[in-house]
């Protein structure tokens, strides 16, 4: 209920602002909705949305799995941490634009280059978060598993993984927002479809309604993913915690 009210307030502010500024710079909500309907009925909206979502999914899965594995290793093995740390700092501070441009120069304007560039941008933050998680693992529970001679996999699944779950969820949440910001840049610079490409076109034509129609639809999709996937995962991972009264 409160969420709906908050959303209504957002719409009202937008509408009022649109009345003052004028339709060319900030179109009113119905104008944007109309563009959405037109683009949806032609199928273009879904095509571009699908292309972007596919890139987000691939890059996200790639960065999360690779980043989690490397982060866990660095948190557990001192040598890995010392070897990997300079690379990590370099990657963390490398601007997204540099990675994308270099990827396109080296690998051509290809799908693989785009996805790799997006994944590389997300990778270091996943590593940092999971490394913190691995460092915070409870040694006393490791000892328990070792005394009871738990096989490696069972110990990982039941002792280690539940401790990492909050870190994985945090990394997934921040990762999703990061990936979807960067995917648009990659699309704008070197892909012939996707939301980023459409925004590039809209920019050249100064077509604000179109720009808003695409970006808001995509924001809605991200919101749905967050509510339907990330939050339930978090709730499940935390169900053993006694709830605060």
């Amino acid at each position: 209920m409160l969420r709906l009210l908050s959303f209504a307030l957002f719409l009202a502010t937008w509408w009022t602002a649109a009345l003052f500024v004028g339709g060319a710079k900030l179109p009113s909500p119905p104008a944007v909705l109309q563009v959405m309907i037109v683009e949806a009925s032609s199928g273009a909206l879904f095509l571009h949305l699908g292309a972007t979502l596919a890139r987000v999914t691939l890059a996200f899965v790639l960065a999360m799995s690779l980043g989690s594995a490397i982060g866990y290793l660095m948190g557990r093995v001192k040598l890995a941490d010392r070897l990997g740390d300079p690379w990590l700092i370099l990657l963390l501070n490398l601007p997204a634009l540099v990675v994308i441009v270099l990827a396109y120069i080296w690998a051509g304007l290809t799908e693989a280059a785009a996805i790799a560039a997006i994944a590389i941008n997300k990778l270091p933050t996943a590593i940092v978060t999971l490394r913190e998680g691995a460092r915070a693992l409870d040694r006393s529970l490791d000892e328990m598993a070792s005394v009871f001679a738990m096989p490696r996999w069972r110990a990982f699944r039941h002792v280690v993984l539940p401790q990492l779950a909050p870190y994985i969820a945090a990394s997934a949440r921040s990762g999703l927002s990061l990936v979807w910001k960067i995917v648009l840049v990659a699309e704008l610079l070197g892909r012939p479809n996707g939301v980023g490409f459409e925004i590039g076109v809209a920019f050249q034509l100064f077509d604000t309604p179109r720009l808003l129609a695409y970006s808001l639809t995509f924001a809605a999709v991200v919101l749905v993913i967050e509510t339907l996937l990330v939050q339930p995962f978090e709730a499940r991972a935390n169900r053993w915690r006694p709830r605060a009264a």
Partner: protein
Amino acid sequence: MRLEVEITGKTFRSAAGGTHEVLAPVRFALQSGEVGVLIGPSGCGKSTMLRIILGLDRDFAGRIARPPEARIGMVFQEPRLLPWRSVEQNVRLAAPEVSDAKLSELFRILELEAHRSHFPGELSLGLARRVALARAFAVEPDLLVLDEPLASLDDALAGRLRDEIATLVASRPMMTLLVTHSLDDAIRLGDRLFFLSPRPARIVQELPIAIPRAARSEAEIAAIRTELARRIQSEQGGVHAGRDVS
């Protein structure tokens, strides 16, 4: 089956760079069906000794001989349960081969039947200790190690839990090593008592109790207790091994 502990020394390097001696030479052996009790002042190195015996700390001089196939059941001082798994899952994860019947019996003896599906965060310390006990017994251990299993429980609860431990220890032959502060617990549960000195720990006295555990009457327990107190007082500091106190 036999556990032989032969530690010749253990030093610990502090962050400041100095070395501290935690354990002096310590030697004892434990047979199947026997309950050994380590009694010593706080911080004397009992926990370090346990960690060495359990194989968690390999940085020491000496040797520990226990059959490699020996299954270990351990009750840590803090229960060390997995907070994200239910009581039953906690036990089953450590003892995947435990039968439903055996598990039910353990839960009945330890009065945990109502808490099977609870998470450890919902349990009191007394109950969490019981779950840790259930977990240790469910693996049908050859070597059972109990690290102050009754600490910080009120007397009535500690007494009840002690009786439950006695029942379970008597139910199958295994080597049991109990660490405690309480002379009373030691006399009621132990067959052989090892008194440890302050750090660096060594065995000051080794005292076997001849009367079988189950046959000890309250009067005999009281008698052993007075005798022990007298002996400790008069022989403080000396090394006297192999005395029979009963």
